[in-house]
């Protein structure tokens, strides 16, 4: 009777399974990329000693600044890499200055200005191998402060998995949000835009003053004595500020909604002359005495449908007028050197134009390097510096119709198109 026994035991097993547990289960998980808030005490940040460290491999390059024969390459929120660029065909990675929270910089004489969360730092560059902190202007970029003074909030890219997707506010004190929906993604975009000295700068020096723009405010520092920057005042600009470009005694500020023109003939107190409202864009601007060149693209964070180069007549600064617009492929950054305009076309490549005749720029395209994917560029004294997915590349641009590649600095997390 053994077989029957086994059959009935199978039946028994089956009935146990059937009657005990015929209930479905559903488990959900929600994994998302977000900006995780980090709270820092500024007193801790200030207590850290900043000294020149040995060279580190370039990772995730941000702003680039040219100072004499050196390239300063910012790694957003980490610090500044210093490279010897005496020979643009062979740049040498020299050292690294760790500055937490740093996203931008500018050099005035022998003094380097860099932001350190809410503070502005001034470094003495007299000895490039031993860069010294000479001044700290405290509590100037106050938009980072939470309500409690002394504590700042910053964000870190994080991926979080939760079993409870309905509650987005779990352990972040209300700041946890899907990064694509949160304002802080705007912050991160800002922290990762490219090329100071290039057209996406946010720190700029003009007329013995340092102008620093964040999303909504321009802050003015008197730097007449370079090693002793003094904070003068903030000026409210409105929302969505992206870039700043000085020309003569004017400031051209690119924003989400247009281009602001400020008269900075009184450097300590610029006044608004005009706002040129083109379609919404995050638009780099370059300027010569008669025209402003603006690129619009249908990037993702700036919802406009246009891929264009616009030439704006600014002979009357109070009434800027659109002169002509040219269709482009996907223009990101641009740089003007004399009569020559260079445009990075993202995935499509790198273009050079002769813009002496602004009505016929399209007919004066000099070169189109389709293999040079590029995001931003800086026309430097020795080379044209192009930032793209291949790293930081330099071109000999003595002949704008025939750019010659000199070198490329490899980077760990090269810039992506956005």
């Amino acid at each position, binding site marked *: 009777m053994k*077989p*029957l026994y086994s*059959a009935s035991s*199978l*039946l028994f*097993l*089956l009935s146990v*399974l*059937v009657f005990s*547990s*015929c*209930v*479905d*289960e*559903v*488990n*959900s*998980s*929600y*994994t*998302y*990329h977000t900006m995780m808030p980090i709270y820092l005490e500024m007193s801790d940040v200030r207590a850290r000693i900043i000294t020149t460290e040995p060279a580190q491999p370039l990772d*995730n390059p941000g702003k680039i600044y040219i100072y004499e024969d050196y390239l300063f390459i910012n790694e957003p929120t980490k610090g500044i890499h210093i490279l010897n660029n005496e020979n643009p065909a062979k740049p040498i990675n020299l050292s690294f200055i760790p500055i937490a929270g740093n996203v931008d910089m500018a050099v005035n004489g022998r003094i380097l200005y860099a932001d350190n969360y809410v503070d502005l730092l001034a470094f003495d560059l007299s000895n490039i191998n031993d860069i010294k902190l000479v001044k700290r202007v405290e509590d100037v970029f106050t938009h980072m402060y939470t309500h409690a003074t002394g504590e700042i909030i910053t964000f870190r*890219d*994080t*991926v979080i*998995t939760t079993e409870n*997707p309905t509650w987005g506010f779990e352990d972040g004190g209300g700041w946890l949000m*899907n*990064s*694509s929906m949160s304002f802080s*993604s705007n912050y*991160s*975009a800002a922290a*990762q835009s490219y090329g100071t000295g290039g057209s996406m700068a946010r720190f700029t020096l003009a007329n013995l003053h340092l102008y620093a723009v964040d999303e909504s405010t321009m802050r003015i520092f008197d730097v007449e004595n370079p090693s002793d920057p003094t904070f003068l005042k903030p000026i409210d600009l409105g929302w969505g500020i992206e870039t700043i470009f000085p020309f003569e005694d004017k400031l051209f500020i690119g924003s989400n909604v247009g281009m602001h023109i400020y008269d900075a003939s009184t450097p300590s107190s610029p006044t608004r002359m005009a706002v040129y409202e083109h379609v919404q864009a995050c638009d780099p601007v370059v300027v010569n005495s008669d025209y402003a060149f603006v690129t619009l693209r249908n*990037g*993702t*964070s700036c919802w406009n449908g246009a891929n264009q180069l616009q030439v704006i007549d600014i002979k009357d600064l109070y009434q800027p007028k659109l002169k002509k617009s040219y269709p482009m492929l996907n223009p990101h950054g641009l740089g003007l050197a004399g009569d020559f305009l260079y445009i990075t076309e993202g995935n499509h490549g790198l273009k050079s134009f002769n813009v002496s005749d602004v009505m016929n720029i399209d007919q004066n395209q000099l070169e189109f390097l389709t293999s040079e994917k590029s995001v931003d560029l800086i026309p430097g004294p020795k080379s044209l510096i192009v930032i793209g997915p291949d790293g930081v590349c330099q071109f000999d641009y003595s002949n704008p119709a025939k750019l010659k590649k000199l070198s490329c600095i490899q980077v760990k*997390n090269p810039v*992506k*198109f*956005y």
Partner: protein
Amino acid sequence: MAQKKLYFGQTEIGFLYGRGADQWDGNHERRIDISFMTFNGAHITKNQVVGFSLGLDQYDEISIIPIALGWRGFLGKEGKPKIFGGLDLGGGSAILEKKVSNEWSKSWYEGELMFSPSVGFSFPAREGKTALSLSFAYKRQQFSQFYGVLSRSGSQPIATDLLPPGYNSLTENNYLFRSFVFRAGLIF
């Protein structure tokens, strides 16, 4: 004793009965779904068959094609009604589910493990080799539903094992369906 034949086939259709997952009030909704199964195998002894099964389970949420290795064992005299037991172990394929993909998001299903023990009765036809079969089974089927929102182009990628590259978020619903199955069909 010589074996009658090597090939064994069984095709059945029936119902899956189950109770849905916990609702907010702790209740469960009943679900009744259609199930089809065909088993093809070979006798390894007079009373035992191994082979593979293929089917279609049409749940409300999803159509699953279970594919499994199976065993059937029989008890009883030749020409008389028999009791049989069976075990199928394999996976479910969600290939019938459409993947939805657009500029911003993607969603898809993935079938997972399937396990199904069964018992049944076979009633041989008076003539020929076929038999009527009635099966009672338990079926445990897992599958997952994914909904991913793609990263906006240009947002800085982040190195992580938690998200597949190119995704900004991923919602994953893991389902475990436990069903009681009643099927009727033919053995041939």
